[in-house]
Each structure stands twice: as structure tokens, then as C-alpha cells.
């Protein structure tokens, strides 16, 4: 997403990313970044919690006006109400194809780490 953000920003649109994995987003190099300690799949907050979602979006959008230069990073003060174990348990049936492939061919995990994506491997 940081890559898309850079393109939009360079085209003249002011951008901000709200990231649950700010370490990775910031490493790409982005103009404005709001980090949040929420789990994957629920970046704005819990379903049917409009007040919580609105607070997150408000804090994210305010960064558009307050940032004065690139690589502006702010950590939002919101805390997820569940432990990682509880948040993980709430996710059911998530089975990315790459996980199935790496269970069959675990040595290919080196390619995932390095970014050297194989183009000749049948799953």
C-alpha cells in the first residue's frame, strides 16, 4: 500500500496511510503514516462500532493537515480490546494458498523471505 501511496502523492494528491503494520509501511518510505495497534482485517476497528471507527478515521485524516514534510509518522493511541490470542481465534478459515504450498514445499519459504519469486514452480 505504501507503493500506491507514493504514486498518488507524486501525482499531486495529499495522502495518508492508516497501517496496522507501520514498521513495514514506513520502511517503504511514505509521506504520512498513522500507525495503529489493531489486528489484520480490522484496521478501522470492530464491526458495528461507528464511534470507534470515526475516532480512528478522524485521527488519520487530521494528519493530512498537520504533517509538514515526508516521513511524518504518528502512532494513534487506540488499543485493541482483545489479546492477540483472542483476535487470532476470532479469525476463521483464513487459508492463503501460499501457506498450503509452503506446507508441501517448506524450502520455498526462502523465496518468500528474499522476494525472489519463482516463476517456474508448479504448486
Amino acid at each position, binding site marked *: *500500500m*505504501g*507503493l*500506491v501511496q*507514493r*504514486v*498518488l*502523492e*507524486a*501525482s*499531486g*494528491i*495529499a*495522502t495518508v*496511510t*492508516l*497501517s*496496522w*503494520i507501520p*514498521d*513495514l509501511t514506513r*520502511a517503504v*518510505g*511514505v*509521506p504520512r503514516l498513522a500507525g*495503529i*495497534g*489493531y*489486528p*489484520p*482485517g*480490522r*484496521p*478501522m476497528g*470492530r*464491526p*458495528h462500532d461507528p464511534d470507534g*471507527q*470515526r475516532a480512528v*478515521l*478522524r485521527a488519520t*485524516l*487530521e494528519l*493530512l*493537515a498537520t504533517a509538514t*514534510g*515526508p516521513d511524518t509518522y504518528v502512532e494513534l493511541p487506540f488499543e485493541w480490546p482483545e489479546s*492477540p490470542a483472542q483476535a487470532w481465534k476470532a*479469525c476463521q*478459515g*483464513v487459508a*492463503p*494458498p*501460499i501457506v*498450503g*504450498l509452503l506446507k508441501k514445499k517448506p524450502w520455498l519459504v526462502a*523465496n518468500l*523471505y528474499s*522476494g525472489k*519469486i519463482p516463476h517456474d514452480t508448479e504448486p
Partner: protein
Amino acid sequence: MAIDSYRFLDFASRQVMKAWAARAHEPGAIPFTPLAKPLRECTVALVSTAGVARNDDRPFDQEGERRNPWWGDPSFRVIPLGTTERDVRLYHMHIDPRFGESDLDVVLPMRRLAELAGEGLVGRPAPTHYSTMGYILEPKELVETTAPAIAGLMRAEGVDAAALVPA
């Protein structure tokens, strides 16, 4: 930083994401466009990476990713303002889609944006918002085709600012 980016990830995903962060640096200066006008006058668009597609639009290509797990669909979908969870599905296979499918604002907060426009924080929500699918290991098409296309559509609608929400 105080936020632990990897807190909610399993061990294997954590190690992979850390490795990606260690080599993520893009060459060149980070672009920066100052807001052209006060935020309260800006037209704002949203981008989600949850793989949101309307039911009357083409789904993201899950079958292609099943055939080749190293590949992710690098295209995008337009999501008109007013679209709700009743009108969409989430096609990102690396997250649980049920949260966004029960409340679309969890990943693409168009209703919240409209409320904040009503409060005067921003000028107005753009007529159109966007979704990509976040699992893209080789981002060439995403960067060279998809992102410029989204930028063009945003500019055509007079978008001043965008908020991007990785899922």
C-alpha cells in the same frame, strides 16, 4: 516506536513481514504534496486493500492465486459512495473477510467519512472510492498501471486528499 507491528501475527508471518520491512526501502526521495487548501474544504477519497468488489462487478481473481500462490491480483475496483456491505464481497484470502462483509466501514469507512464531512472536518467524500487486493509480491503492475489509473480517476473527480487503509 511503541506499537508492535507484529503483535497480531503468527510466528511465520511475523518473520516474513520483518524480512520484507528490512529490505523495503524505495529508491529516491519520498514524495510530499502539501494540502492545497484547508482540510475542511478538501474532497477526500479512500483506498482499501481488502480486495473489495461490488457484486455487480468482476471479482478479484482468487482462482489465479490458487493456481499460482506467488501471484496476487494487481487490479483495482471502483466502489461508489453509498455502497454498503450488502453490495460487496471481500476477496483478499489472507484476512478474514467476515468482518468487512458484516460492516464495510471496518475496511473502507465511507459512512464514517461522510459523517466527518458532516461535522466539518473535511469538505466532502469523493463520489468514488477504491479497492486493491493487498497480497501482491511483485508490485510492478500495481505501481505502473493500477496506482496511476487510480490517481487519474481521483484527479478527474477533483480529489484533494486520500486515505489509504491496508487491511
